[in-house]
């Protein structure tokens, strides 16, 4: 027997209803703040949704942001399944950009796109994996806490990238620290170009081929976690290290592997941004995607389907928020950060606040049958 009243509530309560209620609460509080500073919250919501979903261009932007968030969300989720809180998605994505950039800048004059782009993606994944592996190693073999080391690795990544951009990769003869433009062979096709090629004319947006890579990664992550021996080992370690030891699974090895895979996924962000849109390596191109990925994974319940949905929501907030800041003068960029912060607060930090109440509500309504319990 247990005092856990929630054990019998239908699964969808925890999986769907709870996140929905959390997001609604976040929007209600955000609406109150918008009203407080003297803007109409209903109008703000309209601008936000319209700005994110109102046109093909808007949707393109939303999906573009979502693509990066899927990569970082998956990264955080895989580490979660191994029982690790990977705060380092930002740094791993950033260093992944270095991998992409170095491969492209050194080979883009020699190789055709169909070789170069996969190589560049591999370079990004490899560098991201390295940046995840090192904290994983420190955790597994030296006992340094992964949260602390990944945070520190974000700073190291940032400093290293500044050095690389300013001193090594900078385009000669200019002041702003960005690399030269990649040769066209390294450019991922835009979605509007691909659709145009098959006869659908849509407005141009930054959405590009990396979106498909993100979806493939989602399927891959599901297969890895729930269909492979490695995924099984990762989940055993994540749930219970003593059971792992009993089963002959080496938790240290699994932790290092999981962190490397996690970092590799985060390292693919640059495929979306650098190969897809900017076509050059920029300073701070990660724009906080690594951190938001934590919220995406939390909200998406560490499952690829949930992660796609949560990434879409945050994509809407990024894109719609930008429009909102543009259209409503009293709502600044900082206000958008507040709104996104509220969503993270309610769906991440206060995630379990309403769970007992909701589950009790639905358990009471459920028919009472079992007599042989216990």
């Amino acid at each position, binding site marked *: 027997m247990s005092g856990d*009243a929630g*054990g*019998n509530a239908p699964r969808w309560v925890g999986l769907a209803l709870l996140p929905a209620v959390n997001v609604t609460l976040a929007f209600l509080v955000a609406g109150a703040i918008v009203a407080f500073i003297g803007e109409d919250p209903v109008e703000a919501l309209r601008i936000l949704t319209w700005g994110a979903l109102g046109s093909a261009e808007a949707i393109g932007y939303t999906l573009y942001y979502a693509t990066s968030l899927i990569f970082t969300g998956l990264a955080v989720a895989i580490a979660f399944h191994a029982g690790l809180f990977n705060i380092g998605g930002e740094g791993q994505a950033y260093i992944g950009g270095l991998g992409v950039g170095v491969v492209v800048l050194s080979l883009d004059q020699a190789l055709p796109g169909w070789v170069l782009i996969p190589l560049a993606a591999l370079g990004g994944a490899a560098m991201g994996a390295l940046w995840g592996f090192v904290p994983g190693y420190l955790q597994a073999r030296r006992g340094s806490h992964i949260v602390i080391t990944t945070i520190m690795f974000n700073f190291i990544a940032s400093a290293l990238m500044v050095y690389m951009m300013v001193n090594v990769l900078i385009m000669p003869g200019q002041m702003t620290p960005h690399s030269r433009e990649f040769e066209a062979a390294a450019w991922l096709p835009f979605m509007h170009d691909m659709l145009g090629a098959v006869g659908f004319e849509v407005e141009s947006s930054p959405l590009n081929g990396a979106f498909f890579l993100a979806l493939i990664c989602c399927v891959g992550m599901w297969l890895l976690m729930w269909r492979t*021996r490695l995924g099984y080992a990762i989940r*055993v370690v994540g*749930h*219970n290290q003593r059971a792992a030891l009993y089963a002959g699974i080496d938790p240290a090895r699994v932790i290092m592997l999981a962190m490397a895979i996690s970092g590799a996924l985060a390292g693919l962000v640059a495929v979306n941004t650098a190969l897809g849109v900017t076509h050059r390596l920029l300073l701070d191109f990660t724009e906080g995607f690594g951190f938001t990925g934590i919220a995406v994974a939390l909200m998406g319940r560490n499952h690829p389907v949930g992660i796609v949905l949560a990434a879409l929501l945050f994509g809407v907030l990024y894109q719609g928020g930008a429009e909102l800041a543009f259209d409503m003068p009293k709502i600044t960029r900082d206000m958008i950060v507040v709104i996104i912060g509220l969503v993270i607060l309610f769906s991440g930090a206060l995630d379990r606040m309403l769970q007992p109440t909701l589950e009790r509500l639905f*358990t009471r309504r459920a028919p009472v049958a079992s007599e042989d319990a216990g």
Partner: protein
Amino acid sequence: MNTTAKPPAIRLAGISKRFGQVQANQDISLDVEAGAIHGIVGENGAGKSTLMSILYGFYQADAGYIEVDGERVRIRNSQEAIACGIGMVHQHFMLVDTFTVLENVVLGAEGSALLGPGLRAARSALSALAEEYGLEVDPDALVADLTVGAQQRVEILKALYRGAEILVLDEPTGVLTPQEADQLFRVLRSLADQGVTVLLITHKLREILAITSAVSVMRQGQMVATLATAETSREELAELMVGRKVLLRVEKGTADAGDTVLDVQDLQIAGLGARDGVNGVSFSVRAGEIVGVAGVAGNGQSELLEALSGIRPIVGGTIQIKGRAVTPSAPSDPHEMRAKSVAHVPEDRLRVGLVAPFAAAESSILGYQDSPEFGDHVLLAYRRIEAFCDDCMETFDVRPHDAALRTAGFSGGNQQKLLLAREFSRAPELLLVGQPTRGVDIGAIELIHKRLVAMRDAGVAVLLVSVELDEIMSLADRILVMFEGRIVGEMQAADADERTLGLMMANAHGTGEAAA
């Protein structure tokens, strides 16, 4: 018992409590006479702990009421329970290890912001209590330095210091040697003589018969009977608990021991945490016999099992299994041991032997997750895993028969059956078993014991670690007793009796025979 007009110390009337779909308590009524020792028995999950939690204010009853000394009371938290004179001694002690006995006793009842006056008052109160009830504990000793039995006395003192006139003890003897248990019972009797009412929750029928004056039996959330202890028997109580006749004795023939399968020489293992591990034990286990390791929990048995199964590295000595000599310089691992047909049923099934949130099917391959029958190099073959789990559930009658159900959703007995089915399925030659029936209901115990004997009869060497002396004595062919990491006694099961084993477990058997 004299029938006076005095109201019962506790009256529970029509108590019901539901958790989700589980009716933990259903219309329970119970009168406990003042100054009596009243036992409550029932299998795990029968609702004993829920009932006591309601009495102590952890949970609120959905229906029904509580009377203390004839007055209706509302108990919403432990403070209110204490105010009603109810004290609770939990199964797992609620003590601060780094505090002295005195500090623990005043904890939460300091009386003022300054500790001095409270401590002085407690000191004199403690010596009075100690004299009155024979509860001697050094008030200035650190709790961490006390034996388990003494820690339990501190818990009782805590309750009495807070003015408890009704003392509830939840499975108090689980961690005690038989001698310590006897000492506890003497204390409880003297408490009862002084008018304290004792409610004793246990699943050990022998204790009920030894000490209580009345006993109530719970089954599936209901109170099925309240009897005068003098007028009942073990068999009757067991039948009431389970709802059908049960075989309390294990039926087994004599062992037909064959070749030595496991030979351990001068084994040394580092301990868990601050505890001592194993300091030089030697023994062997032959095919077709059950060797029981008795001892109070925490005397090296856990480390021994973990080392034999390859989980824990050894510091000295050798383990010889099927021609392989495991030494500190040639360590083993769980993979190798499984490949050598060593099966391991760990002591803590839900934290070690299974993964609580996994589906039963996933838990049913833990330890064999790399076996070729469950997939190729990379992928797991879930259909085959589910079929395997089905087989396991079939052969051990695991209920509900649902491979997709979360492991934690099964009762303790059914989790254990699933785990045993997995470990038995590999035709082991050496079976390491830790606490096979801890927290398992009587019906499942019967089945598990039968299967263990069947394994023995099929020629498997079985090493059984248990803190339940009854279990060791009824299953084992040979008994080893561990104390502080050493084997302090060995005897044939036929010659064993509880008293001798109990003395060995406390190492009070005389050092002369300890080397045997």
